[in-house]
């Protein structure tokens, strides 16, 4: 099963962020060693986000995310896990599981038998 793992930076009930405790290196090394992590990266802060909409034939852009949430998606990883339990186990070891939360979304491949559709 393939999962998109979204790393949410912080939650009201999460631990305070202490950079010294955030061992991303160990997490990446462990997830890579298990062969579960396909790719992943950190995302620039939400001030760098751009929202694109196509409305009535016009492409509209705005600079910030439209949602007013305090928290944001700080990074993503793509996981290939045997089961949801394995994905949860890997996600739970991520430093942001303590300060924020991790959301796992199973992917569903789209088929394009005909390029028109």
């Amino acid at each position, binding site marked *: 099963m*393939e999962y*998109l793992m*979204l790393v949410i930076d912080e*939650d009201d009930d*999460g631990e305070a962020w202490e*950079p*010294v405790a*955030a*061992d*991303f*290196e160990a997490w*990446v090394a462990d997830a890579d060693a298990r062969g579960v992590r396909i*790719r992943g*990266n*950190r*995302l*620039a802060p*939400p*001030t*760098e*986000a*751009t*929202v*694109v*909409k*196509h*409305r009535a034939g016009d*492409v509209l*852009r*705005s*600079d910030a*995310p*439209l*949602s007013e*949430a305090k928290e944001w*998606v700080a990074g*993503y990883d*793509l996981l290939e896990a045997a089961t949801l339990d394995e*994905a*949860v186990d890997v*996600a*739970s070891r991520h430093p942001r*599981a*303590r300060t*924020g*939360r*991790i*959301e*796992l*979304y*199973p*992917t*569903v*491949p*789209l088929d*394009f038998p*005909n*390029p*028109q*559709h």
Partner: protein
Amino acid sequence: MQYVMFVATDPEAEPFVAAEDNIGQWAAEVDARGVHVFGQRLRPVEDATTVRVRSGELLVTDGPFTESKEWIAGFDIIDCRDLDEAIEIAGKHPMARFGRIELRPIWPFDVSEDPVEREEREAGDRGRRTEPALGS
């Protein structure tokens, strides 16, 4: 520049019309241009799982943590010249019309760097837009 395109639903967008969903055409174009790195549709949001660790205890819940009328239906990673090209590509995606697209530049970092030094070095980059802003 690599961007993650979060393909999101938007209650204010026009209703989805399957017959006008040209995602196959979009995929063929971005592949032909060599700007598409990877992408995938996601299962409906009810299938999400939220993972938290609080006071050393693992908490697993079904669904996303926050209730929202908007959710991420898919994602793509694109490698573009600049933000303008990313906007052009995002604007052609059928979900720009039936939803909205959020572009987030990736922010690579060296995991072996000392985390405190990294935090100090990058402090000035937080809360400041370096991507071209509207009207600039």
